C-alpha cells in the first residue's frame, strides 16, 4: 500500500512538474548556447527584464509595508471592521487575476470612474507603468500579511508587554522585540510576494496594452515570442523565470530551516 502511494505521488510529480521543467530547458538550449544567449540579449527581452524588476522593486516594498501594518493591526488590536479587513486581505486570492486587471481598467481607463481625474493631471495609469504596478500589487498583497499574521497571532503579545513595562517606545519595541520574532516569516512572505510579482500574467496583460518595448514584462514577452513562433526566444526567457522560481524555493527552504522550532 505504502509503495503504491509513493509510486503514485512520484509519477504525478514527474509528469506534472519535472517533465515540463525539463522540456523548458531542452527547448531553450535546443539550438545551442549561442542561440540561447542571442535570444536573452535581444533588446525587447532586456527591456522586459528591466520592467519586471522595476515593477517588483516597487510592488514588493509596498506590500511589505502594508502586510506588516495590517498584521500588526489585526493581531494586536480589536477595532470595528477588524473581521472585514481580514476578509478583504484574502480577496485578491479569490478574484481571477484577469478580473483584477479589468477592475483597474474600469477605474482608471478613459471611460473609468477616476479616468477623467487622472487624464486632467496628465497621468497615464492604464497601458503604462503605474497601472501595471497597481495590478501587480493588488494580486500579491495577501502574501506578506498571510505569512506574518498567523505568526504574530501564535506568538502572542507577552514579550511586547514586557518591553512596554520596561519603558520601551514604539519603534524600539518593533525593531528590538517584534521584528526579530517574525523576521523569518517576513522574509518568507517577501520571497513569495516577489516570485508572484515577477511571474504575474493575467492582471498585467489587461492593463499593459502590450506596447512592445514599453509595457512588456517577462511573462508577456514569453507569450509574444511564443505567438511569433520564436520558440528558442520564448523558452530562453522562460528559463530565466524558472530559475527565479527555483532560487525562490531554495531560499524558502533555507529560511524555513532556520526558523526556531522547525525540525
Amino acid at each position, binding site marked *: 500500500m505504502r509503495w503504491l502511494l509513493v509510486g503514485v505521488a512520484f509519477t504525478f510529480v514527474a509528469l506534472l512538474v519535472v517533465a515540463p521543467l525539463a522540456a523548458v530547458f531542452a527547448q531553450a538550449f535546443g539550438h545551442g548556447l549561442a542561440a540561447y544567449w542571442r535570444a536573452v540579449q535581444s533588446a525587447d527581452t532586456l527591456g522586459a527584464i528591466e520592467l519586471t524588476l522595476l515593477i517588483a522593486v516597487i510592488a514588493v516594498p509596498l506590500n511589505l509595508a502594508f502586510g506588516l501594518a495590517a498584521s500588526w493591526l489585526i493581531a494586536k488590536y480589536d477595532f470595528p471592521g477588524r473581521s472585514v479587513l481580514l476578509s478583504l486581505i484574502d480577496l485578491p486570492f479569490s478574484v481571477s487575476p484577469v478580473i483584477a486587471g479589468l477592475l483597474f481598467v474600469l477605474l482608471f481607463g478613459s471611460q473609468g470612474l477616476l479616468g477623467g481625474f487622472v487624464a486632467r493631471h496628465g497621468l497615464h495609469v492604464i497601458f503604462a507603468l503605474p497601472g501595471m504596478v497597481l495590478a501587480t500589487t493588488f494580486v500579491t498583497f495577501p502574501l506578506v500579511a498571510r505569512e506574518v499574521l498567523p505568526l504574530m497571532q501564535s506568538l502572542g503579545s*507577552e*514579550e511586547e*508587554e514586557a*518591553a512596554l*513595562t*520596561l*519603558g520601551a*517606545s514604539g519603534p524600539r519595541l518593533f525593531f528590538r*522585540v517584534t521584528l526579530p520574532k517574525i523576521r523569518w516569516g517576513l522574509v518568507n512572505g517577501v520571497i513569495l510576494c516577489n516570485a508572484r510579482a515577477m511571474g504575474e500574467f493575467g492582471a498585467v496583460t489587461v492593463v499593459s496594452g502590450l506596447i512592445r518595448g514599453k509595457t512588456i514584462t517577462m511573462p508577456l514577452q514569453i507569450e509574444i515570442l511564443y505567438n511569433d513562433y520564436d520558440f528558442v526566444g520564448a523558452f530562453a526567457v522562460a528559463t530565466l523565470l524558472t530559475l527565479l522560481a527555483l532560487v525562490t524555493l531554495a531560499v524558502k527552504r533555507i529560511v524555513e530551516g532556520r526558523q526556531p522550532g522547525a525540525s
Partner: protein
Amino acid sequence: MSVRVEQLTKHFDRNSRKPAVDDVSFTAPPGCITALLGPSGSGKTTVLRLIAGLERPDRGRVVIGDRDFTDVPVRKRGVGFVFQGYALFQHMTVRKNVAFGLEVKRLARGAVAEKVRDLLALVQLEELADRYPHQLSGGQRQRVAFARALATDPAVLLLDEPFGALDARVRVELRGWLRQLHQRTPVTTLLVTHDQEEALEVSERVVVMHEGRVEQVGTPHEIYDEPATPFVASFIGQPSLLRGRIEAGRASIGAHSLAAPSGAIEGSAVQAYVRPADVRIAKPPAASPEDGPQVSLSIVEGLNRVGGNVKVELRLPSGERLGLQMTRAEIDALGIGIGDRVLVDLGEAKVFVEDYSI
C-alpha cells in the same frame, strides 16, 4: 511606595453585565509583599494588569505613592512586571534580557554592564549570562524574569503567578528565595496567586478575591483565623461544610453546639466550615450494655495515609461527611480502624448564617 487602587472596575465584554473586576479597592503597604489570592477567573490578574497599565479601567483610580497613575501609559509607570509565562525575549541572551530596560533608559554602556552583573549575582545566574532562554530550566527563566523586572529599579514589582508553571518542589524552593530576595531589595510587591499556601507563606498582607470582587483584606493570620465571608472560609484550608441551625443562642450542628455568629436570629440556618487540621477525634468511653446504641458517635469510613500524615474520613450521625487530618503517630496511639465509632471535636469551626439572597 504604597499602591492604592480605588473602586477599580473593568468589563472585557461590553455585552455582559458582570465585570471582570468589580469595584475593587485596597492598599498595598510600602515595602511589603501583598498577595492577591483567589481561584482562577476571580479577576486577580486583571487587577495586576490594571495597576501595570496594560489594561485601562472603565472606572476607578490607581495611585502609586501619592501620584495618580490612572492615565499614565505603561512605559512611563516604572513598574516591574513578571509574567506568568516569563515573557523573556527569546532571541536575546540572559544578559541582553536583563539589560533591555537599562538600555531603554540610555545608561552608559559601562553602567549597564555593571548593573547587569549585580542583578545576575543577585539571582545567582552569573554563569548563564550568555545562554538563551530556551537553554534554561523553568526556575532559571523565572529568575531571569525577576532580574529583568528589577533592573529599572521599579517603584512596584508585580508578579503574575510567578511560580505557576513550575513543579511543586521548585515552587517551594523559590518561595523561600523570593522572601530572601525581598529582604535584600524591599520593593513594594504584589503577588498574584491561586495557591493559598504560597500567599500565606510569602506575603505580609493578603487580598482575597472572588468573582471580580474583594472578599477580605488582612494579614495571613487574619485571613486564616478570622475569615470574613463564607467564601474565604470555604477557600482557605480545604474545609468540610456542615449545616445546622441556631438553637437557644448557639449554632447547633448535629450533636455539636458551637458559638453562634453575632446577630444570628433564632432558628436561622447556618453553615460551619471545619478544617481538617482543626478536628480532633477520640475513642468513646467503654460502652455499658444499658447505654443503648450510641447514635451520637461518628463512623470512620476511610483512612488514607499520605506520608507521615493520615487523612481520615468520617460519617457524622447526620449523614454528612467530614474530612480531617492527623499525624500517623496520633492515629496509631488512638488505635482506630475503618468502621470504628469515635467522638468528634469540631474545634475552631467557622460558622456563618446562610444567606439565601445568593
